[in-house]
């Protein structure tokens, strides 16, 4: 048997399992993102959709400025609102940082805050009685000079 024939035989043996490996890699990435970064399970290909009501409309964001004394002031949401949607779907630090840089407050107002906070909340469905209730998901805090 030639080297070429041996090489093809070996290659043919594992190649058919490549799609499965890709699928499992997507699934594990999805699981990791949901657990560690609180991503919505409906996205990133883990087949977690239709398992819970979590999706972008059921999450909301609150932005606060915190001064030196620790007093929090609610701030307007960043614009454009796609930045907020990006946080609700995938609240990773890069998305939060990008959104905070676009909070619509003037420089003078911004100066008085020592840090900026972003809170992510989501609605869950409670069965008895049937109702939606808000649940805190996570908070990211950044010093204002970043």
């Amino acid at each position, binding site marked *: 048997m030639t080297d070429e024939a041996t090489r093809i035989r070996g290659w043919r043996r594992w190649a058919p399992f490549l799609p499965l490996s890709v699928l499992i890699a997507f699934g594990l990435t999805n699981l990791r993102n949901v657990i560690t970064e609180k991503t919505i399970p409906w996205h990133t*290909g883990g087949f977690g959709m239709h398992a819970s009501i979590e999706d972008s409309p059921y999450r909301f964001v609150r932005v606060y400025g915190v001064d030196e004394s620790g007093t929090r002031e609610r701030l307007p949401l960043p614009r454009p609102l796609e930045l907020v949607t990006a946080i609700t779907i995938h609240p990773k630090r890069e998305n939060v940082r990008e959104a905070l840089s676009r909070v619509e407050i003037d420089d003078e107002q911004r100066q008085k805050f020592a840090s900026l906070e972003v809170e992510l909340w989501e609605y869950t*469905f409670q069965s008895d009685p049937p109702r939606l209730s808000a649940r805190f998901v996570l908070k990211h805090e950044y010093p204002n000079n970043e």
Partner: protein
Amino acid sequence: MIGTAIQKLRAAAGEGLNEDRLIDLVLRLTLIYHLGLFPSHVSHAVFPVFFLAAIGLIFRPALRHPLFWAALILVFGFHMTTQSVTASSRVLNFCWCIAIFISLLPGCDTKRVLVLNVRLLIGVIFAQAILWKVVIKQEFVDGSFMRYSLLFCEVFNDRVTHSGLISPEIQASNQQVWHAIINGEGAVQPQAFQEPAHLKILAWIMTIWTLLTEALLALAFLSPDRWKLARYRHPVLLAFMSTVFVFIPLWIFGGIFVAMGLIATSSREWRIRVCYILVYFLLMSVTWFMEPALAMFYIRSYLGS
């Protein structure tokens, strides 16, 4: 007359659909599926996919060439790396395209590679779905998800009202409360929704049916061929599609399952093949004729508005 028609159907779907033709059909169904795959916000990927799908559907040499499928995989790869989110159906499609690409490489047994991937991919995605529904999130297994969906999911809104499962007044009242809560972003004290008892029962039936079929699909497709359970792969997949996907019209998701299911049939299983084709047209009909709003959504998405 009916006997003759059945004989003709048997000949066409059985021996008439030999391995070569079956592979062509499956690849074409996969490409047709692509035409409905890219709604709304992914318009930058629409044109290359449309272009490639059209080439593959028209020119058979392209359809059976691995480079053609490599090009499709590249488009998907580009799409998935440039989007912040990736829908599960696109991941399945991506993996299926890789399987087709590998199966068409020189020296590979196309049908054997595709059938192996049908078993593994369908088995694993339904195993993942069950994992989410039963182990990771308990909102499905306790019935909450279906109860909520029947009350508020757009897919069910008209159906539950038209079938008299919920009165328009109650639904309007629930919608009002829902909008107040969602728009209030935590500032509105949550009120209870009105939920008729029979809607709750229906939600439980749907929950049990979904869990049962998805678990059976995972087990049947992942079990070895010699196991009895393996015999039920096609019936369970058909049952799942013709119930769940008719209720939740996802013909683009159903389309790829039809393509995958068909390739795993033999010429003796002509009835199963006919069933897959019927389910394919059923899903398309439900989407395009019985769900005009959904059809309009796709049309608007393609037009970019």
